[in-house]
């Protein structure tokens, strides 16, 4: 993965976002009525600008592809670290949708600290429980801001 590829991929995504915006705007009135611009007027044009600007970025990247190809986005080790850090977060968010945030974050902390951080079990368990309980006390008790809860909290009578 070089900078050249990432430039192209990201610009393509922006282009897609622009296209979605343009499509979404055409579901509304994109015109200029008697009282000025209608609801779809700005979304339509912002979408067009995004498409044009991302196309230009892609063109620029192609023009200077020789130098951009020489810039690596990250090395193999870096990529592994980023994925190793990012993927468990995705799992946690997916898990949180039905177990609630407390259980998901405790499990996430437990497993990342144990297996990615290679810390002993008692450290991982201590941090996982400590952070979850501290979060519960700060948010639910102190500031009275309820967080996402799941079956476990309901079973314990905390939900």
């Amino acid at each position, binding site marked *: 993965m070089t900078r050249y590829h990432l430039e192209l991929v990201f610009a393509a995504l*922006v282009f897609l976002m622009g296209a979605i915006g343009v499509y979404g705007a055409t579901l509304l009135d994109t015109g200029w009525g008697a009282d000025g611009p209608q609801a779809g007027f700005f979304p339509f044009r912002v979408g067009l600008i995004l498409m044009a600007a991302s196309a230009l970025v892609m063109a620029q990247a192609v023009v200077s592809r020789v130098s951009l190809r020489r*810039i690596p986005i990250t090395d193999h080790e870096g990529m592994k670290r980023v994925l190793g850090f990012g993927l468990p977060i995705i799992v946690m968010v997916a898990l949180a949708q039905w177990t609630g945030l407390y259980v998901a974050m405790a499990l996430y902390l437990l497993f990342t600290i144990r297996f990615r951080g290679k810390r002993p079990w008692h450290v991982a368990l201590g941090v996982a429980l400590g*952070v979850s309980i501290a979060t519960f006390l700060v948010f639910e008790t102190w500031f009275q801001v309820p967080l996402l809860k799941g079956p476990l909290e309901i079973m314990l009578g905390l939900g």
Partner: protein
Amino acid sequence: MLSNIDSLMHGFGVALSGYHIMLMMGGVLLGILVGVLPGLGAPNGVTLLLPLTFGMDPVSAIILLTSLYWGALFGGSTTSILFNIPGEPSSVATTFDGYPLARQGRATEALTCAFVSAGFGALVGVVVITLLSTAVANFALRFGPPEYFAVYLLAFSSFIAFGGGAPLKTIISLCLGFGLGMVGIDTVSGSMRLTFDIDQLVSGISFLVVVIGLFGLGELLLTIEDGPEFKGASGRIDPREMLRAVARMPRYWLAMLRGSAVGIWMGITPGGPTAASFMSYGIARRVSKNRANFGKGEPEGVIAPETADHSAGTAAMLPMLSLGIPGSATSAVMLGGLMIWGLNPGPMLFIEQHDFVWGMIASMYLGNVIGVVLALATVPLFAAMLSVSFSIIGPIIVTVCMVGAYTVASSPFDLWIALVFGAVGYAMKKLDYPLAPLILAMVIGDKAEDAFRQSMLSSDGSLGIFWSNWLVGGITTLAILFLLWPLVTLLRRPAQTTDPDAVTHEP
């Protein structure tokens, strides 16, 4: 201006209560913490704390949030100097000379210079706010929708002209922000926009969740990629060396004044603290009489970016309060906070919310003094904290970000949004897309659109209203000139067009 001094004294009366001083100390300490920890910075520190202030009185809430901001600015410098890891984007320039100083065993001197000059820069910023804010607000009271639109346009286009990023990428960043801000119910017509029948999008995409993704998770991914090893210089502070360093500070008066001036300019125009600190360092390196020593451990190379960083941070509060236009990503978040607390940022704030405005300004004096003292006192503590392995701290920061994303609107869907923007933020950083314009556009994009559409309502759809008097005409013309500025530079230096990977920042 004399009446401002009276108001300020009144403000001190509001701010000087035991509870508020406690909030300031708590805010500064939390701020230093988020500033020191990579992945947590001022914009998302403020974002994370914001949902907890919904039940507070607005004065107390803003004191807490601004204090956190000052703390974060101080904390960012600590890691820059001791570990060569900027805790904040705006303290990158501090690493250039701060870390070499620390390596030479002059960490105490570097930290003292950084904190004292930062405190100085902040005080200059607050003095400017004290003197100018009512004048700006009174001036802005005459503004109608066309003037507001012109000023918003000026804010957006000055990002393109002076933001420091590649103009095309700044435009993309701004337009992504506009687009994201448009999702949800259209405030003028009441129709659904860009929601595609997805229930979770009806209430819009919260910029707070986007900030947590872009600035929080995105930064963490960048940090983890480098495999951070906090092998830094010693964080031990020698009190006698500290006093000697303070005594030497007046020698650098010129650098401090220059840095403050750069910072105030960049803070009021939406260049922000990051651009200010780089610019100030760049200027000092060119004109200082110690320039030969820059990059090798020159105290002036710490003082120049630090004064500019903090004066920009404080000065950014001026347009936020008096015009409702934020000058930095963090003040954009605070502006969002003001609206959530039920205040209407802009000139009316000075009339309707006298206690709030002056209590906040007074707290900026106190908060920064407390900041300098606490920052110096807690260096060993926070330096020790970084010796705890990132394999433990990193995941904890992730959970803090996720909890923060959820508390914004109690929506599980927001966790996914934060996650997506974490990846987006990582890619944008890698490709030198500026992040602040995206946030600014999200926060004030729909206000700009409303102002535009209200202007059109009153002018029967004629654009001539933006040139209907000298004031609005002048601002609009200036904004359009700024917008065209990149084209001018392209024509002047055609060689640069084929070199998009040119380094945008000084070393």
